[in-house]
């Protein structure tokens, strides 16, 4: 029985791994092919099946004037917008979440839970609903087609995620921890940043990870709120497509688009498994 269970378990894990990894391997292999290798017969192994070439990668960094597409600038634009918006969202979101978790708010029929829901509701709405207001808003303040404008919009989109995760996290940090800090001589601000915050690092990391992922992969707002001045990576990658699909450069750009998230995942995983959370109480 136990052997069967083990067998099924490993079979499942192997199948799952193949399912996840195969597309990546396919993309890696395709990124080193040329037109001929992609369109003739099905091939897998470089040097044996086909002659590898770096053309798919080179196109990405060549300027358009020399026949390339140059995704370097959009790449750094994306990094800047995602990181700035995530950082600000985490800071504001954490403060808001702490307040929502520890203080009681009352305004008419509105209570803490309603405010929390209000934050989350920003994400429940289909993005298309927000597109026109955002467009009008950014054009009014003159930030359409600019990095700063995108940062503002992304903060609106990412902060609910931070608030949502951190409210839940702070609710699980016992109130006695804050109270003990007050008794030990901290003022409420010190209690927050000296005691509660260091205990919340796993929560902050999870919230940060989600913000970065959602910021990095957004195509919709990057697409409708920019034109010629600035471009973000997802828009640029989609723009690579033409009448003849350039599978090689699409694969290469997909791989370098995913690379930062893979790095984030590895870093975060180490922190999460450390178990900093366990043992604050009991």
């Amino acid at each position: 029985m136990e052997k069967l269970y083990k067998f099924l378990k490993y079979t499942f894990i192997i199948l799952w791994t193949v399912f996840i990894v195969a597309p990546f391997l396919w993309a890696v292999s395709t990124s080193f092919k040329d037109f001929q290798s992609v369109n003739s017969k099905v091939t897998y192994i470089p040097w044996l099946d086909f002659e590898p070439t770096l053309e798919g990668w080179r196109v990405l960094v060549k300027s358009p004037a020399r026949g390339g597409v140059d995704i370097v600038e959009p790449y750094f634009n994306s990094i800047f917008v995602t990181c700035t918006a995530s950082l600000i969202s985490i800071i504001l979101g954490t403060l808001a979440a702490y307040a929502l978790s520890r203080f009681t708010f009352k305004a008419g029929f509105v209570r803490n839970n309603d405010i929390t829901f209000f934050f989350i509701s920003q994400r429940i709405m289909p993005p298309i609903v927000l597109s026109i207001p955002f467009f009008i808003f950014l054009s009014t303040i003159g930030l359409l087609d600019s990095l700063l404008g995108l940062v503002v919009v992304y903060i609106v989109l990412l902060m609910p995620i931070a608030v949502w995760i951190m409210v839940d996290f702070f609710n699980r940090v016992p109130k006695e921890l804050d109270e003990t800090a007050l008794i030990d001589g901290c003022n409420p601000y010190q209690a927050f940043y000296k005691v509660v915050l260091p205990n919340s690092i796993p929560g902050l990391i999870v919230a940060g990870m989600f913000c970065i992922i959602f910021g990095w992969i957004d195509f919709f707002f990057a697409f409708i709120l920019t034109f010629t001045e600035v471009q973000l990576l997802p828009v640029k990658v989609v723009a690579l497509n033409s009448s003849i699909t350039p599978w090689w450069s699409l694969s290469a750009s997909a791989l370098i688009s995913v690379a930062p998230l893979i790095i984030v995942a590895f870093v975060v995983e180490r922190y999460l498994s450390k178990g900093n959370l366990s043992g604050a109480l009991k």
Partner: protein
Amino acid sequence: MAKIELSNISHSYNPNDLNPTYALNPFSMTWENGKRYAILGPSGCGKTTMLNIVSGLVKPSKGNVLFDDNDVTNLITEERNIAQVFQFPVIYSTMTVFDNLAFPLRCRNFSEEKIEERVKSVSDTLRLSTFLNMPARKLTADQKQLISLGRGLVREDVAAVLMDEPLTVIDPDLKFRLRRNLKEINEEYKTTLVYVTHDQNEAMTFADNIIVMDQGEIVQVGLPKDLFERPKTTFVGYFIGSPAMNLFETQLHSDNSVKINDTTIKTNTNLSKLKNNNIKLGIRSEFVKVAKDESENLLEVNIQKIEDFGNFKLLTAKMGQLTIKSKINREIEIPNNTIKLHFPAEKCCVYQDNKLI
């Protein structure tokens, strides 16, 4: 260290409602400097609320808190210089044991030499010295609670150390030692200790003075002996002592005696001014004895069961509908059916409307 005075304090968690419910009814009390107090009562009787009012975590709906005659009611916790230990260990899990113990001193800008000295002294007392450089989260539950306690004791000038059932998670053997340690600390440093518990043995062995609470009221304040022998209300009689005090519905008989069924029981209380309704007689099972040659205050009872507790026997007997419990010496042989029990007059307490006469 300070004298702590609670003057006309009352507290409600819903003061703005039409009919606010009070977690603490109005009371006044003074905690003398350097003494040990235990607050004893069932869950939800307002013990923790009282502590939180003293430490400033809760602001009382009415009344004032005074430390050495200074009104601190409106001061926040940080400014009160008080220590509080909660029921479950609270540690700063990202810090080492040393940093945990040093935290209250660092918050108050003590010098590093002073911090070193105090942390060493407290960690020696609590036997935490070998763990000082370990991350606090790696310790066991009872060691973590020792850290909580240590943070309370590390400041010498603290007005009082408030403890909210602090030994719940600690195993019995260590509990006993810690209670003794706390007593020693109190005697050495003259720190006022206030100890909330629902365990009467803990309260009795620890405190100079015991405050018994029930449903937001302070029912009795007194020495362990008074609480045991002369409980002011039937609640105290019932709550303190194991088994609870024997209580019987009675009728007045004369100026100093009452009747249980048809038996007259003499007491040392003057009953001449009482009305004959809702009178109860209370006596501790420790004072109910098997009669030898006494001639009065005797009750003839049927034995129900005898339980052997090792150091004593607990006899449960019936007289009509009444149940009487008596703690007796192990050596005494008890016949199987009927027996005469003696109620010493000086140990009988008479209650009207559940209050001691």
